[in-house]
């Protein structure tokens, strides 16, 4: 039985490789594991409910609220509405972003993925594109729903509408922020390659470390805080630039984008270099 038969010239079943195929593939991966549904479901559920809860509390305590605080709320009701449920719900996106890549490493799936897609950077790009688009879609829905619920509840004290200057941009911006956060988490997940470590570090950074930098003394603390990725990014959820904000909403989002891009570049570099 020596090599007499001709080797099949070309496989008969695979036809083409395209970026569209990679997107398709990553979409299948994303939708076919439970953690995706959990994370996005949690976001869609928590964001509006906590908005309702916290705006409700604000309204209930209105009479005891100091006049200065009232005028602060009145100056940017959009930020109050969008910001209230937001902090609670963003960890869901951090978890999803990290899991999307780190779980491939923890399960060994990454090897099957890389056998099918040896161009690692294209794979990472497709993953990021699918993840951020899906997160954007769900976040936009959650943000609009939250805004309408919050505005309706707040209406007896302060009027807020999408027509207010910067309001629409803030609502859409919240979706953009969460989409960027998913990419930020994806990059960390790709760098760390461990689910638990990745999730812990992203959430610790976003919820604890970054806000704490504010407490550093003097101008240094102020500037350091203003240019931290998530803290800067959050500015886009405000309708107006508040007094003391060093950056405009779009500048802030740009800073967040630059941080994320830098981390993605590092993630891509490591992905290419490291053994799978």
């Amino acid at each position, binding site marked *: 039985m020596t090599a007499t038969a*001709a080797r099949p010239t*070309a*496989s008969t079943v695979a036809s083409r*490789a395209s970026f569209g195929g990679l997107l398709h593939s990553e979409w299948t991966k994303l939708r076919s594991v439970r953690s995706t549904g959990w994370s996005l479901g949690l976001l869609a559920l928590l964001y509006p409910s906590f908005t309702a809860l916290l705006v409700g509390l604000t309204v209930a305590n209105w009479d005891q609220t100091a006049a200065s605080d009232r005028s602060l709320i009145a100056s940017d009701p959009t930020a109050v509405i969008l910001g209230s449920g937001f902090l609670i719900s963003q960890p869901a996106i951090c978890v999803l972003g990290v899991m999307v890549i780190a779980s491939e490493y923890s*399960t060994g799936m*990454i090897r099957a993925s890389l056998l099918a897609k040896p161009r690692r950077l294209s794979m990472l790009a497709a993953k990021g594109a699918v993840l951020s688009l899906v997160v954007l879609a769900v976040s936009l829905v959650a943000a609009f729903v939250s805004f309408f619920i919050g505005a309706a509840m707040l209406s007896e004290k302060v009027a807020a509408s999408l027509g207010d200057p910067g309001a629409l941009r803030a609502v859409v911006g919240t979706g953009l922020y969460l989409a960027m956060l998913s990419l930020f988490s994806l990059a960390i997940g790709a760098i760390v390659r461990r689910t638990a470590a990745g999730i812990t570090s992203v959430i610790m950074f976003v919820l604890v470390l970054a806000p704490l930098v504010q407490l550093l003394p003097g101008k240094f603390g102020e500037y350091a805080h203003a240019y931290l990725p998530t803290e800067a990014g959050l500015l886009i959820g405000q309708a107006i630039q508040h007094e003391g904000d060093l950056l405009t909403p779009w500048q802030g989002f740009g800073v967040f984008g630059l941080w994320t891009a830098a981390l993605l570049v590092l993630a891509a570099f490591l992905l290419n270099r490291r053994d799978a």
Partner: protein
Amino acid sequence: MIEAKNLTKRYGDKVAVKDLSFTVGPGKVTGFLGPNGAGKSTTMRLILGLDHPDRGTATIDGKRYRELTTPLAAVGALLEAKAVHPGRTAYNHLLCLAQSQGISKKRIYEVLDLVGLSEVAHKRAGGFSLGMGQRLGLAAALLGDPAVLVLDEPVNGLDPEGILWIRTFMRQLAAEGRTVFVSSHLMNEMAVTAEHLIIIGRGSLIADCPTQEFIEQGKKQTVLVRSPNAGELAAAITRAGGAVTRNDDNELSVEDMDATRIGEIASAGGHVLHEVVPQRGTLEEAFMALTRESVEYAGTGSTREADAPKSGGGAE
């Protein structure tokens, strides 16, 4: 055709593969043998572009794995470690792989059928047994109907029926003209499956020959000779071209000479013979003898003694 050229791979201080070169041709099953830790899996990961060699290159039909545009259509691979998300169903696992290069859904069902997993296609892979997991890995390898197959210990976890099935299957794939490169640490398994053997130990090439040739070598007889005049007899045999090892005062192991000739020499020299016993080593023993110097993880106690060919059991 798979071509490895001077492949070297280090993990920290540990050299897993050392200056390894070989080619694997089409139309036959090529067995990749070596004791545990010899570097078989590492070599395969290097071929598949998963790990980066420190030196050397590995190509498939002249291209590095990363340069393949539809890799699944060129190379099918089954890895040693699991490469499946346990939360995903078998079908979805194959679907996400297929979609990356335009492989049809029809083909997914075909390969599921081929490996006997049709009934659990929509079950999560996390609940699969070792053997089912192995079959799913094979399904993924076959997805693109590739001309080259790289299989790392494919019989792992399979039941006897599964082993027979995959053995037949690999030979069939080879008969169709495909390149089938399959690793194992079991000589006997490879003796019945592979036509060609590439044997490595401690990351280096030990042998690269047709299986038949290796079997001939393995069958090389040793004759055990007991005689009260062992010393003089040994000298006589050596003069006549035999290779003698003195086991003790009156026992010799003779190679390169058959029992008849030894009898004649003894008779001619007037040496008394108590026993002349031809011994036939098993293939497994020949393999162990060959790789003995390079066994990575020897068990405690002197396995070296225990490994030595002793009594005769027929080769495969």
